[in-house]
């Protein structure tokens, strides 16, 4: 028996040898594998580990400011709370007791929510950071506090139609949030931050300490808007709308020399922080998307077209009969009862009394093609190219559909439809010596300006100067107060047009659009103001009595704000 356990020395050596060989073999395998992982090809595992440690960089959308840096839109952080019942360490009742005071949700409701049998429960959304810090201190297992950035508009309703709104989750936006979206989302490329499983940053020599402590922000967008002028425009417009119970209104203030829009007030307004609580008809920028018959303000373009096509001279006189019949249609002046037959009138009288007969006669002096082509040059019937979405091209019927009556009515601003921006842009060409400039609300860098803002010559400087002088003269001579700004000469025109019936031919009874467009100082214009008020109620509602006072008040305050030098001291100053 004992012989069984005797070790044969020779056999023993072989067994030991093979055992040694086996261990050495496996050890070599491990060594080779380690060499492969750490020396030959460590790259892809390093990258995989890096990716696992990296968190998606938290970014803020770029800020939107006015031309002087006043913040109009910015981002803030809010938190959403989710619960995972699988990981609860205390009961839903205890959790609810701890967190309900900070969430403004009744405890019972919270207990119901937390007790649901789902893998993930949405407990609360949009919680402020200071409340979340207090909830974090409880270290409640099973609660997930997810950070997200939310758009904030500190000025509330100011310039809401220009700013628009944004909803990143639903990928919808409006206003400059839409047109400037690419720029606002663009961030500087930065090194990805690596974090431990507990969420602590892994620092190395190349880690930028600023990047790890602040959210990365998109590019800032500067607008041409002056928030003070915007506020003035909105306030004065709101007062008039309130006074006349009008449906809506708009005030556009622009620099006619470079197309920069200093203010674009559109009422009724809305709060972009709560855009989803307002109707679409309020949220849309109707001054861009809706059209209206420009009425007597269009006479400026009619006369400018005739002068440019050399059909008339600045000293021309036309016979104003007060009333005329064309192709069976009767057209008359608005003051035909007061001035039944004015007789031979010059251009200053035409503008001062807003003579329809004078305008249509001048319109008919041109051929249809001449008049049409010049209006196309003025941008009527096409988009201005403003950097806001939803712009309408307006309606300018082609000459194929023109007959005498149509051409005549176009002469005083009917049978066509334009947006307030189109009319403002066209009249700006009269103010700046003959150039149609793309209106814009975004302040572009010099290198991008040529791409976005076009300058197109539409009338000669002589025509532009002539029209400016005549308009200035008409305002000076007019008995109305509209356009009379103390110490300044103003070139302007009022307009009143009946509202077309949207459901058929004809016009809506007793409903009008009132407007006033003007620029000052007349000889060297620095600002152009366009006012349109839709459907003011009451007796004696005209462009000069509704839109005119808004123009006056806005212009007066702008002259003080911009410190414009008076070009006519003593003019329009009321003696005490």
């Amino acid at each position, binding site marked *: 028996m004992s012989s069984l356990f005797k070790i044969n020395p020779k056999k023993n050596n072989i067994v030991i040898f093979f055992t040694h060989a086996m261990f050495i073999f496996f050890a070599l395998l491990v060594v080779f594998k380690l060499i492969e992982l750490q020396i030959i090809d460590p790259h892809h595992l390093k990258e995989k580990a890096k990716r696992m440690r990296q968190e998606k960089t938290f970014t803020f959308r770029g800020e939107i400011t006015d031309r002087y840096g006043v*913040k109009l839109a*910015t*981002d*803030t*952080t809010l938190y959403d709370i989710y619960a995972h019942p699988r990981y609860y360490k205390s009961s839903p009742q205890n959790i609810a007791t701890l967190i309900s005071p900070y969430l403004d949700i009744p405890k019972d409701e919270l207990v119901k929510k937390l007790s649901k049998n789902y893998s993930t429960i949405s407990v609360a959304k949009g919680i*402020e*950071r200071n409340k979340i*810090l207090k909830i974090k201190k409880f270290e409640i297992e099973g609660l997930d506090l997810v950070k997200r950035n939310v758009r*904030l508009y*500190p*000025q*509330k*309703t*100011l310039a809401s139609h220009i700013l628009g709104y944004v909803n990143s989750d639903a990928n919808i936006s409006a206003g400059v949030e839409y047109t400037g979206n690419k720029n606002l989302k663009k961030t500087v490329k930065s090194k990805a931050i690596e974090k431990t499983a507990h969420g*602590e*940053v892994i*620092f190395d020599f190349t880690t930028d*300490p600023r990047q*790890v*402590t*602040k*959210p990365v922000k998109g590019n800032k967008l500067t607008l041409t808007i002056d*928030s*003070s002028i915007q*506020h*003035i425009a909105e306030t004065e417009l709101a007062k008039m709308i309130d006074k006349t119970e009008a449906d809506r209104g708009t005030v556009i203030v622009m620099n006619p020399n470079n197309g920069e829009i200093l203010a674009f007030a559109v009422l009724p307004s809305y709060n972009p922080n709560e855009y989803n609580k307002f109707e679409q008809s309020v949220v849309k920028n109707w001054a861009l998307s809706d059209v209206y018959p420009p009425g007597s303000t269009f006479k400026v373009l009619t006369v400018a077209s005739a002068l440019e096509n050399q059909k008339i001279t600045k000293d021309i006189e036309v016979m104003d009969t007060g009333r005329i019949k064309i192709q069976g249609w009767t057209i008359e002046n608005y003051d035909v009862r007061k001035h039944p037959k004015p007789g031979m009138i010059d251009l200053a009288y035409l503008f001062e009394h807003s003579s329809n007969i004078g305008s249509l006669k001048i319109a008919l002096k041109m051929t249809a093609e001449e008049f049409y082509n010049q209006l196309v040059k003025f941008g009527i019937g096409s988009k201005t190219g403003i950097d806001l979405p939803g712009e309408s091209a307006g309606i300018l019927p082609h000459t194929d559909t023109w007959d005498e009556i149509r051409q005549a009515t176009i002469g005083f601003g009917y049978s066509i439809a334009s947006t307030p921006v189109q009319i403002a842009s066209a009249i700006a060409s009269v103010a700046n010596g003959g150039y149609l400039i793309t209106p814009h609300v975004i302040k572009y860098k010099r290198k991008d300006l040529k791409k976005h803002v076009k300058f197109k010559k539409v009338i000669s400087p002589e025509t532009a100067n002539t029209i400016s002088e005549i308009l200035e003269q008409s305002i000076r001579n007019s008995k109305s107060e509209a356009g009379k700004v103390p110490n300044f000469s103003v070139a302007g025109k009022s307009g009143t047009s009946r509202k077309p019936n949207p459901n058929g031919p004809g016009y809506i009874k007793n409903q009008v659009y009132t407007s006033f467009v003007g620029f000052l100082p007349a000889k060297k214009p620095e600002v152009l103001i366009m006012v349109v008020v839709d459907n003011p109620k009451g007796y004696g509602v005209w462009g000069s009595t509704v839109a005119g006072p808004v123009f006056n008040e806005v212009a007066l*305050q702008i002259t*003080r*704000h911009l410190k414009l030098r008076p070009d006519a001291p003593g003019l329009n100053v009321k003696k005490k």
Partner: protein
Amino acid sequence: MSPALSHSYSKLNNNHKDEVLRGNFPLYEDIRGLKIRKINRLLCVFAVIAVITSMVSYSLVFSTENKISSIHNKISELNYENIELENKLEYVKSFYSVNKKISKTKILDKARKVIEVNEVDRELELSPYRKKLKINSTLGY
């Protein structure tokens, strides 16, 4: 026997008759063995120093990392708080808020009491700082 075990004590297998001395004596070593032992001792000392150094440096780095982490958390919190405060400030000085505040003050109300004071016959003294300031006021402020 291997040199490593050479320093162990071993009993001499001598006859008792020939013994001059009796006891446990260390076996003699060769020079090579002695030198190897010295080198090993030195390496052990270095290893211990390296271990202690790495322990100390690790704890220093660990505490520094903790400090950096806590500073980082504080700075992050401050930055986010700063953003919130900036936003609140923008809201407070917005046209909307200023208008709302002014509409609540009854500017046109008559004073409840009128106090007459004597005219002060000297120029208003401004602080040097206030004199240096160039304020461009804007509408509403």
